[in-house]
């Protein structure tokens, strides 16, 4: 290396270091201890009662026998298919004949368009949770703070489905996904880095979402323990870095990004959750926690096929004639990556995220993170494991 180059590099180092001396940089780090679809529950009690969100209550259990009769089975055949004494019926996968109810006994799991829209209760209320993705206050829901324009058409389409409908942390979908995460199946981290002096008010902030190979630890009361240490696990796909600002502890992204993350949804898309125009709206709380929303537009067709991959057992456990979800998402899809006139292949949605303080280290564990940056390059040589499915129902066999 020649001397000129050495001097240049040294100068660059000094230049790079100088702003750090002029500002009081700060970093806060968290581990996500709960994540679920952002669904507002509009009833005062229970998890299925009628409410302002769903005036008729939760979408009721379909009449399975009638559904099969409509598909062309005789009443006797339909009742035998549903009879627990039928040896073809399995606790794990249900009765495979339930799938063959499309036109000419086509599988509705493979071809939902072969089956007429059976309909599903949709959200009728005005209150919703999430992020204003398009900046338009004239569409979408109004959030609990009275802010308008909250885009969450996924909630409008499927928010009355039992999988999602309940107060926070009580829906079957949320519990089914979060329990394995909290038992150590996967870990997600959030790192917030600011350049100003006041972490509660900072106009130059970056927020990183990372994966970790370290497992969360529960205390005896079942809560995730705070202030444990987690190392960032570089991942070539699952990472998101937002430019943001903080006002009175509220962190909002300043520009949308495109990102991938492990799909934390029930019936997860195994290839990962693609989010277009992702944005965040979080709050740093006095107790040290970080709560808020990660919103954006996700492709809706893979969501259906993710659920369909679980077969009939998914339908009977969650009370849905599954093609209803196909048509509902198609009906409410509100985004095309190719432009306003393109096919609406994506639907707005939001995840409700609860995170608690944690120590986060750089991948080799040599130090705590002191900034937010991409680690994708460091993962390029690694083979990324496929996301484990967040089972909506159990699929493993027993002995």
């Amino acid at each position, binding site marked *: 290396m020649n001397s000129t180059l050495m001097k240049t590099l040294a100068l660059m180092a000094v230049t790079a270091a100088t702003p750090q001396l002029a500002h009081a940089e700060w970093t806060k780090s968290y581990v996500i201890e709960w994540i679920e679809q952002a669904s507002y529950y509009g009833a005062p009690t229970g998890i299925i009662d009628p409410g302002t969100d769903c005036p008729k209550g939760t979408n009721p259990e379909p009449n399975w026998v009638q559904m099969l009769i409509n598909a062309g089975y005789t009443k006797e055949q339909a009742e035998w298919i549903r009879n627990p004494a039928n040896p073809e019926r399995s606790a794990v996968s249900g009765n495979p004949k339930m799938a063959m109810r499309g036109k000419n006994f086509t599988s509705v799991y493979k071809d939902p368009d072969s089956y007429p829209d059976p309909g599903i209760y949709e959200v009728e209320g005005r209150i919703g949770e999430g992020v204003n993705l398009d900046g338009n206050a004239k569409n979408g829901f109004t959030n609990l703070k009275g802010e308008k324009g909250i885009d969450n058409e996924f909630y409008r389409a499927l928010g009355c489905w039992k999988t999602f409908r309940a107060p926070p942390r009580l829906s079957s979908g949320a519990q089914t996904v979060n329990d394995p995460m909290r038992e*150590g199946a996967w870990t997600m981290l959030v790192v917030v880095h600011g350049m100003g002096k006041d972490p509660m008010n900072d106009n130059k902030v970056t927020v990183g979402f990372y994966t970790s190979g370290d497992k969360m630890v*529960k205390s005896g009361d079942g809560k995730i323990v705070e202030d444990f240490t987690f190392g960032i696990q570089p991942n070539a796909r699952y990472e998101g870095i937002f430019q943001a600002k903080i006002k009175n502890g509220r962190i909002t992204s300043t520009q949308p990004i495109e990102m991938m993350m492990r799909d934390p949804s029930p019936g997860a898309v195994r290839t990962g959750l693609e989010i277009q125009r992702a944005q965040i709206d979080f709050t740093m709380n006095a107790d040290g926690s970080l709560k808020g929303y990660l919103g954006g537009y996700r492709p809706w067709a893979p969501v259906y096929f993710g659920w369909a991959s679980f077969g009939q057992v998914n339908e009977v456990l969650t009370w849905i004639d599954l093609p209803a979800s196909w048509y509902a998402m198609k009906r409410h899809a509100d985004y095309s990556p190719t432009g306003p006139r393109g096919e609406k292949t994506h639907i707005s949605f939001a995840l409700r995220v609860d995170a608690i303080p944690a120590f986060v280290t750089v991948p080799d564990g040599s130090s705590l993170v002191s900034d937010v940056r991409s680690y994708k390059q460091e993962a390029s040589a690694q083979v990324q494991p496929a996301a484990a499915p967040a089972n909506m129902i159990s699929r493993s066999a027993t002995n």
Partner: protein
Amino acid sequence: MSSPFSRRSILRGMVGGAAVSVGIPMLDLFLDGNGQAYADTGARLPVRFGTYFWGLGLTDTPTGSRWVPKNKGPGFDITPELISLTPVKDKISIFSGYRVIGDGRPNAVHWSGHASILSGIAPLRAGQMDGPSFDTNIADAIGVGTRFKSIEVSANGKPVSYSTRSGRSFATPEPTPLALYQRLFGPGFQDPNSPSWQPDPSILLNQSVLSGVTEQRRALLKQVGKVDQMKLDQYFTSLREMENQLAIQLQRPAKAEACLIPTQPKNEPPKSASVDVINANSKAMARLLAMAMACNQTKVFNFVHTPGQSETYIAGDSKIYHQYTHDEPTDAKLGYQINTSKLAGLVMQALGDFLTEMNAIKEGDGTLLDNMVVLAFSDTGYAKIHSVENIPMIIAGGAGGKHKGGQHIAGNGDPVTRVSLTAQQLVGAPVGEFGSGAMKTARPITEVMT
């Protein structure tokens, strides 16, 4: 006047030209004045051990529990799903709040719970355990000297067993009352109270043949490498168990006061999984098993009422239990899943009936149950989400006076292995610690031990 005989005395003679050894029946002469122990050594009557498994836990929701007693310690309150245990309340301990700690291993649904309880290790994947189930250690410790080292029973019509030595293959259970009867009291059964008992010449022949094989085994083992030695050892282990079984049948069995040979079940019940059928199977099999222990056929058993993903149902209902646990919403007013709780109560009725059968047989100054340790447990806590926290566990039986029953112990997040270790120590197994990783423990629950 002192007797020239002790319980260890053996009568030697010839039968059919072959030398035989005949043990002496267990006479009152050999017991102490209380009928609780042997007179010569003071050793207590044998304690039997069994596991009892049922699938899908009990009803435990985020807003309330239908099984966890409110009161801790002695004199706990009977909760709705434990009502069937009322007749034996003073002979059981209820354990709540114990959990599986996976050390980062994922929850293999309907598997991690009981695999951890039995092996002490959170399994890497469903269908396998990462160590032997501890019942096999107990069988090795106390199961010798009986015709069957252990008996496996599956009451749901399917051959389900969680007893394993390798973690990969599992014992083959008897899936129906008829199959269990034929195993216990069919060909080969030696009535310990029969005055006309004599050794079967064919068994003598087999015993002789197997003894010859044993000699050859020793010679063969000297000539092969280590890997082959392991293979041979595995093979001959089963052979030795057969030898032991045959040898026992060459000795007059100890007289068993409570032993009554049950009648053979007439009809094979339908292999339906409805809960009334399973419970009827379970009760019939419990009676057979109880008599097998009273007749000294075995000291160890593993009983599966329903598997982890229980498919049982109420006759006439189109939904199975597994489905109810997942799809039934919690009732807003009552705070629990109504049908799930109803099925849980029916499933627990079978456990109540099982223990009542054991408690009905008089033995010494107490009952068979007083000389037993039964560890009853399930695979999940809150089944809707396959939780492995707050898995219901129960220790039943007096353990020959070692178990201080009638208590509710709250575990406060301690590992399930503490209960497993307690059961092992109550039955007298030589084990000081159990489990691995965060579930490794050397702390039994002393509150229930005298």
